[in-house]
């Protein structure tokens, strides 16, 4: 109705996204630490 909510997301895409997201977060945190 408001946001378009997909019925399903392929498992592979979901996993790749999860791994990439976590790696990105770890990377961002370590970047912040390095320049601090």
């Amino acid at each position, binding site marked *: 109705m408001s946001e378009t909510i997909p019925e399903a997301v392929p498992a592979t895409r*979901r996993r790749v996204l999860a791994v990439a997201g976590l790696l*990105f977060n770890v990377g961002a945190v370590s970047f912040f630490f390095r320049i601090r």
Partner: protein
Amino acid sequence: MSIDSTATRPDVTEGASPPTLRCVSVQELFLAFLRLGLTAFGGPSMVAYIRKLAVERRAWLSAKDFSDGVALCQMIPGATAMQSAAYVGLYLKGVPGAAATYIGFGLPAFLLMTFFAILYGRTGSLPQVAAIFAGLQAVVVGIVANAAFSFGKTTLKNWKQYLIAAAAAALFWFNISPLVVILLAAAAGWLFLSGQGASTLHSSGPARIPLYRKPIAGILVVAGLTLTVLDLLDPDLFRLALLMLKVDITAFGGGFASVPLMYHEVVEVNRWLGARTFMNGIVLGQVTPGPIVITATFIGYLLAGIPGALVATASIFSPSFLMVIGIAPFFDRLSASPAFRKIIQGVLCSFVGLLVSVTLRFAFQIQWNPVYAVLAVGALAALLKKIDILWVVMGGVVLSILLIR
């Protein structure tokens, strides 16, 4: 309070779900949603992840009951995915179950965002960080433009709805309070719209969820006492809490609906943060898992440290939680009411307008150059092509580093 809802679900074998319902403990629910909350990158797709977990993998509820729950969560204010998580817990284990799934799903986002906010507070003014965020602010323009477009595409079906959205955009642009805009849109919806297609609820009504009077009353009393104590101890935190409560109560249509409301209150009315800092909070809300509403944690931290983060987060998530457990028992009657459907339709139209207006406001904050234009247009184009928001932001980071040097 101790209603074992799993034992009395005659309709659980309906729909596409497997025929048997697995017993589940509150602890198991918490852990399952904690794991999901840590890995749920992807905006509206989060609801699909919850469906996969609860309907397909664990067979906790039928596809039909889940869809009805999502229809409820889309119609009431608050972050849809978080509320869908609460609905699953509520369905299975009553209020303790709802609290377990809600907190489990939101906790990783809260912790990560607090961590990012701490680091941002210490490094945000450094040139390298500022340069990256400057590029990402252009990406945010693309992201919010996409939210307005996606919201509009699914909400606006006829000229009257377009008119309400346009009027809302114009009123908000001229600094009329979003609350007034929403109320006017509700009245316009009630008077002029048909209410058709406002609900995706199945004809047989939603799952029979009892009204948990005592827990709801308990939560309200605790919330009232907490607010009173907060007002006595720290009036600034109290104001922050009230502001976030107000944003959550009025954020119809999902997480992104809270962006214009939060922006208006935090940046324009109270001038607690600058527009660009607010946009940086949106960026961080996109790269952390969980809902965009988690930007409230960032705002709370920047304003008042860890207590601020806690107060802002609790305030932005409490009303939508209460609404799920309070409204679920009545949702079949409510969504069958033509007046309610018309009003909700009007309100949702106004949010399309609010999002358009806030997109323009964000755009005016940027000192445009060709690189930023490429970032904003690229982000919008990628999102319209259904590329996940995480890739878009990550691409924005890489391009910001490469191009803005």
